[in-house]
């Protein structure tokens, strides 16, 4: 039982990271129906920005987190402007292939600048290095921090999407672009804003995974990116709460498989879940089956 609870706690930490990344996939898909393959590399860049801030600039965790989020926001918006916006009226497959191109560009561009070697985050100090003991379960403060930051960011996101004017515009554009334009909503600005939000969350996830696993490399985004995408599909792509739930479920499943079966199989299980959900409920956990309108 204790081991099980311990695993669940680990799963929640990992799931937080998947959920943060999955939100970006799902929001961008919701608004322009694009699976943004470059999203996982924005997460990688976030990890590197955090690394450089903490190692070379020596600034603390919170300023580094904010820096990573800010750099990723700018990067995400720039990618959208340069790579995707000119293709607004192109076929979906053209944009998808562009996204794969942007992804490779970011991965190998980063490798050119920082080399392919694995780098380690500086060790945490002070309170963050402590471990909380709850009976026989130990919870590193680090995991508490990851969960706390994730929850704060998600609440903030929910507030922006549901209560603010730009959030309403986002939802309107994702439901019906023409009708949104007729309300006087600037569709381009709204799409940029969506990329900004998603990229900021990916940047946060990047630095969190850096302090959690302690090692980063330019291709670190690929597999977590795919799994986060699975999480988004699992929850129902385009649905924000779906990505949160999907992220946590995928994270917990992965940790339980590693703990109880064999860590070699964890990726296989995650993708088996994808296949199952696509067969059983293609619209995802929270998705409604909708016909594609012509």
């Amino acid at each position, binding site marked *: 039982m204790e081991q099980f609870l311990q695993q669940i706690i680990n799963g929640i930490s990992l799931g937080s990271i998947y959920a943060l990344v999955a939100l970006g996939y799902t929001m961008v898909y919701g608004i322009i129906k694009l699976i943004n393959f470059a999203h996982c590399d924005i997460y990688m860049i976030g990890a590197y920005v955090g690394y450089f801030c903490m190692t070379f600039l020596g600034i603390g965790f919170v300023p580094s987190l904010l820096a990573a989020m800010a750099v990723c926001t700018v990067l995400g918006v720039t990618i959208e402007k340069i790579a995707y916006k000119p293709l607004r009226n192109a076929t979906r497959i053209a944009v998808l292939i562009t996204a794969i191109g942007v992804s490779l560009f970011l991965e190998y561009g980063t490798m050119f600048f920082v080399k392919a070697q694995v780098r380690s985050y500086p060790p945490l100090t002070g309170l963050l290095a402590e471990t909380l003991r709850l009976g026989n379960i130990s919870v590193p403060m680090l995991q508490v921090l990851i969960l706390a930051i994730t929850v704060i960011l998600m609440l903030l996101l929910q507030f922006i999407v549901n209560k603010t004017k730009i959030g309403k*515009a986002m939802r309107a554009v994702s439901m019906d672009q023409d009708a949104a334009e007729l309300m*006087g909503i600037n569709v381009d600005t709204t799409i940029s804003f969506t990329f900004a939000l998603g990229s900021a969350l990916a940047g946060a996830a990047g630095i969190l995974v850096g302090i959690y696993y302690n090692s980063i490399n330019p291709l670190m985004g690929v597999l977590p990116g795919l799994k986060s995408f699975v999480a988004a599909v699992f929850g129902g792509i385009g649905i924000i709460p779906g990505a949160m739930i999907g992220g946590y479920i995928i994270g917990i499943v992965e940790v339980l498989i590693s703990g109880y079966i064999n860590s070699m199989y964890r990726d296989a299980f995650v993708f088996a879940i994808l296949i199952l959900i696509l067969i059983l409920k293609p619209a995802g956990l929270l998705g409604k089956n909708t016909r594609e309108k012509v």
Partner: protein
Amino acid sequence: MLEIKDLSVYFGVINALKGISLTVNEGEIVTLIGANGAGKTTTLRTISGLEKPTSGTILLEGKDITATSAKDRVKMGISHVPEGRRVFPSMSVLENLELGAYLRRDKKEIAKDLQMVYEHFPILHTRRKQAAGTLSGGEQQMLAIGRALMSRPRILLLDEPSMGLAPLLVQEIFNIIGNINNNGTTVLLVEQNASMALRIAHRAYVMETGSIVLSGTGADLMQSEDIKKAYLGG
């Protein structure tokens, strides 16, 4: 108030509008009738800025708005109720109405206009917390019109408001359009239900395959033999 000159629109190689010209004067209801595919919807979409014309000009109160963005046209007082209502299905009725006032900041006046919309359409007040996608077709049409009124338009573009509605509801919708016009809003109405449209309209244009083939007062066109044969079933 609204003047269109030689407007042409192409979709790829298809010439959807072949140089049409029309005028809508302040305070009028003008209707645009014609068969499916005549270019009525394209005309409205070009006026509201959703389609870009290849040539021709659109003037709003003498000002050339041909290159103006859809957003700025809303600001200048053009409001478009699109074909098929296009309400935001998973938002509440109230949220839909609030989006209609997206560009406005005058909170007090917005609240007033919300009351005005509820007076035109009491059912929207009853259903204000319900998701728009769960409304009936007629209620969605009312919501779409109410949403368009929330921008406080000078000219309202209505695309097929009677589509798919029961005859009694069609009558109700047309009465409301009349009321809105009496309150001072100019209306450009696209309809397939020609007899209803001609009855309410001050003037009318008839479109066929991308061109305007006939125009006149509503009453005149109702008497016209060609119109009777082609559109009024007799």
